[in-house]
């Protein structure tokens, strides 16, 4: 399996043709995706046509861009003009957006080839990709286990060799957690550095689009392509996004790195031992490493599970059977709204809408939503204090490795605990990245997480690059293409 930069280099140099590269990846999807179900929609013909256009452009001496001919998988909550964008929900099953998300446009401009739209937990609500209306995605290391979520399809696409790059979205860990469980790199950028225009909204103050890749350098290169100001997103930062190209190879000499006690204690010993091994490697590479405690982080999970559902209940009010998506007919408009939403949303989406509506309702607003917003302030302040003393923080990405399909699906609170290590960065709007670091005794991948302050992507990628270099030799998943 070749990396994205390697493939783009070979295609641009004329050593390989885009068509042949795309054909290889489509063949891999054809061979394995019946079992893994990473994709909701595979775009075979469109991808081949696009690859031919790139080869033709190269033959004319034009530069198709830094990702020329590189296959990319796109999470199915990012709008693609004229191509179904389902959010893995019945309510949007047949919807074809009339516009492209800004990030989709940027990856096209960079010469990338979209090979398909990937499965997710419905509307990105979940940690296992079991909440898809179209059936679960399976982990290529053990198909009886979950790939994580909500961007499980994107993580599996990269892990199984269907595409060297994928786009996901991360609201409470939805890029980093599946990346960790599938043994790939997953990055959540600083809030506001990647456009949300065309990302179907879940919790707008937390959602951020970001890359999956097999190496830190590929993830950084992809971030450089999708990042930057967008006038179509009013929360987009009016400054260039950090340029991370090359940062993965710089090293960590002189950096101060804190190992976050709250993201190591209480996680599975097999996961904690990998974080400690990564910390040792960073120390050996010249960083000043010690342990730091940010006790306020323990309030992150309960605060998140009030704030995110509250924002979701508001955002998902738009699915009313009027302008797009499913409609279940009824005598009057309110009965139509109620019947449409009952039929169109799955159990987890209903649960979050109920929770959010309750947290925002008269009499409970201050006790729940208002308090959670104040806790958010506490957590940001505590992290800001830590970043006075440290350039980056280190911890586990997930409390455990991949769990069996069905294990947590009937216990929402237990499922929510999967996000405990990733949520703080979303609440603060900070960047964080999960880097594969070996496997547990059962051969399941473990992720180590690097956290940085807002706009600290360059430092974060430097640390991630050293962690990656120190990691045990990657073990190929059981279900992946051999090439």
């Amino acid at each position, binding site marked *: 399996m070749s990396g994205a930069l390697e493939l783009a280099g070979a295609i641009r140099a004329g050593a390989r043709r885009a068509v042949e590269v795309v054909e290889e990846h489509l063949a891999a999807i054809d061979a394995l995706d019946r079992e893994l179900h990473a994709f909701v929609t595979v775009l075979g013909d469109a991808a081949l046509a696009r690859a031919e256009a790139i080869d033709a452009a190269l033959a004319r001496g034009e530069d198709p861009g830094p990702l020329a001919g590189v296959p990319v998988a796109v999470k199915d909550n990012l709008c693609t003009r004229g191509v179904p964008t389902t959010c893995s929900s019945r309510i949007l099953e047949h919807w*074809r957006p*009339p*516009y492209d998300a800004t990030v989709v446009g940027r990856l096209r401009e960079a010469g990338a080839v979209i090979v398909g739209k990937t499965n997710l937990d419905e509307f990105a609500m979940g940690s296992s990709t079991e909440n898809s209306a179209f059936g679960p995605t399976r982990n290529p290391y053990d198909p009886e286990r979950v790939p994580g979520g909500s961007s499980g399809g994107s993580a599996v696409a990269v892990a199984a060799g269907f595409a060297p790059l994928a786009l996901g979205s991360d609201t409470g860990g939805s890029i980093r957690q599946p990346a960790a469980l599938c043994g790939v790199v997953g990055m959540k950028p600083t*809030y506001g550095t990647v456009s949300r225009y065309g990302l179907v909204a879940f919790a707008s*103050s937390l959602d951020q689009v970001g890359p999956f890749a097999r190496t830190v350098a590929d993830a950084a290169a992809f971030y450089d392509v999708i990042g930057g100001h967008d*006038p179509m997103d*009013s*929360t987009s*930062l009016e400054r260039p996004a950090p340029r991370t190209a090359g940062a993965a190879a710089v090293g960590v000499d002189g950096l101060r790195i804190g190992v976050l006690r709250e993201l190591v204690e209480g996680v599975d010993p097999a996961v904690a031992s990998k974080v400690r091994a990564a910390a040792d490697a960073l120390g050996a590479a010249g960083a000043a490493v010690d342990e730091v405690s940010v006790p306020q982080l323990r*309030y992150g999970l*309960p605060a998140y*599970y*009030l704030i995110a559902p509250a924002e979701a*209940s508001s955002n998902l*009010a738009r699915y009313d*059977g*009027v*302008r*797009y*998506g*499913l*409609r279940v007919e*009824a005598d*009057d*408009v*309110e*009965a*139509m709204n*109620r*019947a449409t*939403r*009952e039929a169109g949303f799955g*159990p987890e989406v*209903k*649960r979050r809408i*109920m*929770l959010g*509506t*309750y947290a925002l*309702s008269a009499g*409970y607003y*201050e*006790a*729940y939503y*208002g*308090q*959670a*917003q*104040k*806790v*958010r*302030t*506490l957590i*940001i302040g505590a992290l800001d204090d830590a970043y006075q003393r440290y350039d980056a923080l280190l911890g586990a990405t997930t409390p455990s490795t991949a769990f069996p399909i069905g294990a947590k699906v009937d216990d*929402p*609170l237990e499922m*929510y605990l999967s996000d405990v290590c990733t949520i703080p960065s979303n609440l*603060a*709007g900070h960047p964080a990245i999960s880097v594969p670091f070996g496997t547990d005794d059962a051969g399941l991948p473990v992720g180590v997480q690097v956290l940085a302050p*807002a706009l600290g992507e360059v430092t974060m990628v430097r640390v991630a690059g050293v962690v990656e270099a120190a990691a045990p030799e990657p073990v190929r998943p059981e279900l992946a293409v051999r090439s």
Partner: protein
Amino acid sequence: MEPARRLTREDAAYVARLARLALTEDELDTYAEQLAAVLDHAAQVAALDTEGIAPTAHPLPLRNVLRPDEPRPSLPRDEVLAAAPAVEDGRFRVPRILGDAP
């Protein structure tokens, strides 16, 4: 600022009405139980002393974003309407909104 009582099935039915969800009786039973469990977990947040702490609604300081008031094309009307469940005369068609006059 701790909520006084556990969420009941009646609360769940009220919330479902606010959220425009026509839940079944079984769903109401399940969600009442599950939401109560999640809210029990959230009680530690509700119970925190946050005197004098300002709420954070957003990680960035939000402000209005303006652009020059110049006409530019919108999304093509026929493409937008093509995605709607029902249209009539170039508009979204919906069922009756108001009841019969009393």
